[in-house]
């Protein structure tokens, strides 16, 4: 048993860190987040040259054909660098297309020619696919990530009562921005009146493709959150070492130091959970779906609390626009609820684990 990254996984991670340090320093993040779509085509092309949008896409479709652990390693670095734009949205859509057994758009996604997203939420804002009510390509979807720059939108809808997935061309639908707290990843309302697109899957095939894609994106998000937490912790610790009050570095006061210790515990634990879930998905482990929810429950709370401590430790300075911590703080809030918040995933664990444990039979460990 070995929980560490393999040499090639570690190289991928190190290279990603170097790449984003050069291509997407926080000054770039700040520049890009002030643009209309928080997307920068040049950065996207550079990322595509590295193969990032195609990490999971099979080699025969032009991707890198790697696994979830590699993706998690990459996502952790993207979270650390707070990379703005449609990476996660595109990943989600690509995973749905592939899980549906299609190759449609995959090569263009892998090459960076097309960006994509997935439209699931409606006005009730539920992440449960059972809540999808939209009949065919009519009506509106809400909170669709990065739809503004998406060339392809995978849409979950009903086809005579059955769940169905469609691929729709981004330029055939009406997209309205929904500005939120996270400035680096934009949300849109999408109206599908007049949409051009094709059926991708329906019935059980659609349901399982959607489930698989959401699981993949959720774990990726958890790894990304871990990278963000790591960075927030580092900023706070650095500040606590240098900032002096009452003649001592504030990190010498337990009230501050122990907040830093908690940030470490939350970050490391989120990391363990995210990588375990990534491995479990790759290896079709029996507890893979529960592990996804475990990672999201933990990271949702831990990432928010790390953000809270990260600001608090830096005091007034942490509350300024100039300090980068708020960019992570805002992202943490969006990530907390994306793909279902902790409450949602706890209920999912209850269905996956607790409801399957029988009252009358002793349960093995």
């Amino acid at each position: 048993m070995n929980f560490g990254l393999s040499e090639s996984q570690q190289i991928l991670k190190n290279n990603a860190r170097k790449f984003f340090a050069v291509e997407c320093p926080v000054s770039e993040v700040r520049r890009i987040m002030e643009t209309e779509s928080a997307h920068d085509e040049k950065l996207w092309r550079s990322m595509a040259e590295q193969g990032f949008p195609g990490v999971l896409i099979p080699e025969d479709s032009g991707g890198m054909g790697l696994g979830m652990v590699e993706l998690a390693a990459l996502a952790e670095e993207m979270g650390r660098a707070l990379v703005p734009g449609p990476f996660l949205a595109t990943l989600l859509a690509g995973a749905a297309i592939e899980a549906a057994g299609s190759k449609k758009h995959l090569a263009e996604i892998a090459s960076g020619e097309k960006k994509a997203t997935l439209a699931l939420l409606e006005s009730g804002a539920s992440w449960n696919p059972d809540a999808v009510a939209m009949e065919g390509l009519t009506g509106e979807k809400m909170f669709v990530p990065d739809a503004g720059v998406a060339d392809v939108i995978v849409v979950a809808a009903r086809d005579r009562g059955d769940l169905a997935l469609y691929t729709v061309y981004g330029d055939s639908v009406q997209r309205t921005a929904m500005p939120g707290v996270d400035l680096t990843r934009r949300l849109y309302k999408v109206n599908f009146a007049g949409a051009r697109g094709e059926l991708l899957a329906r019935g059980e095939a659609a349901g399982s493709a959607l489930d698989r894609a959401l699981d993949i994106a959720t774990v990726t998000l958890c790894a990304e959150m871990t990278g963000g937490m790591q960075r927030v912790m580092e900023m706070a610790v650095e500040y606590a070492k240098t900032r002096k009050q009452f003649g001592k570095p504030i990190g010498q006061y337990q009230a501050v130091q122990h907040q830093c210790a908690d940030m470490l515990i939350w970050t490391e634990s989120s990391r363990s959970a995210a990588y375990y879930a990534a491995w479990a998905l790759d290896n079709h482990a029996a507890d893979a779906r529960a592990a996804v929810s475990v990672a999201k429950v933990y990271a949702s709370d831990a990432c928010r609390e790390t953000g809270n401590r990260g600001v608090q430790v830096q005091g007034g300075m942490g509350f300024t626009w100039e300090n980068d911590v708020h960019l992570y703080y805002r992202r943490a809030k969006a990530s907390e609820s994306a793909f279902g918040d902790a409450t949602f995933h706890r209920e999912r664990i209850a269905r996956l684990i607790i409801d399957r444990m029988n009252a009358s039979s002793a349960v093995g460990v």
Partner: protein
Amino acid sequence: MDLNLTPQELAFRDEVRAWFAANVPKDWVKRRNAEESMEARFTYLRAWQRKMFDAGWAGVSWPKEYGGRGATLMEQVIFIEEMARAEAPPMANVLGLGLIGPTIIAYGNDAQKKRYLAKILSAEEIWCQGFSEPNAGSDLAALSSEGKLNGNAFIVNGQKIWNSYGWAADWCELVVRTDPSVEKHKGLTVLLVDMKSRGVEVRPLKQMTGESEFCELFFRDVRVPVENVVGKVNDGWRVAMGTLMHERGTFGAGLQVNYRRNFNRLVEIAHQMKRTGDPLVRQKLAQAYTEIEVMRFNQMRAFSRINETGVPGPEGSIQKIFWSELNQRFQQMAQEILGPYGQLAHGAPEAIDEGQWAYGYLRSRGNTIEAGTSEIQRNIIGHFVLGLPKSY
């Protein structure tokens, strides 16, 4: 123990309530969240203070001889609560009325009282405060802005931060170091500085919410006449602490009303979203109700004690910790109930209450930092209330 208002208090409340009912501008609630320039907003608030002044409601807590109303503490609390209940605009000169005027009354000389007090009440001259510095936040006494005596004036150099209203202010209550040779609490002096003096620069400081509630002040060779010293030279720590003591006094009275209004509004939205049947939502809302009520009871007890003893004690730290941490929990809980809608910002058509919940969440993060961090407040409780050794 009698929690009913006395007949006098009731009469006072009725008078205040009636006045606000008749005079609070009808357009304020809409205007509050609207986009308008800070200057335009401020002109509006100045006019509102002038209206309150003319009716005798500016400086309720001030002694009558200085143009105030000489209200008891309980009357001040009633006034603040009623003002919040009526959703009245704040007064433009909030620092002058609440902190600096009382400081001048307590420590200033007759000439200063005569020169400054009336114009504070009427909002003719707006005041701000220059205390915190980049390297002197929790450790205020470590401040390094200096005032060097040169003939009949101090020459002031330095930088202040977390200044409110600096961009609008005519005057500033400034703390500077006038004797660097003695230990840090002993060489400070409080000066009243004309913000139009040569060498004063005001820069907005943008917060994580995107607003600029605060400013940075820069002083470069600013000349402040010696007659503008409040209290004695090098006795500024005592004067500044007197000012801060007011900050932790009756401030919470209005907060409690605002929190309750936020709670009521959240319940209303939750009803509309048909979420109040969800046992999890019910628990969360009931917990918020509980905490807001306990805050109210704590405040009633604290005000009642101050009313008897006359001095706000270090127990003010309990109130500060309670309201700041309560609001952070409340805003987080609101986010959980509102779901992704709660994150939508001002300008999003689907945003609830024009993005006030997204803003409220971000803004609450500052609550445990501003006006003394939670860490400092717990130090105060530990040392000054419980008698534990000083931990810093």
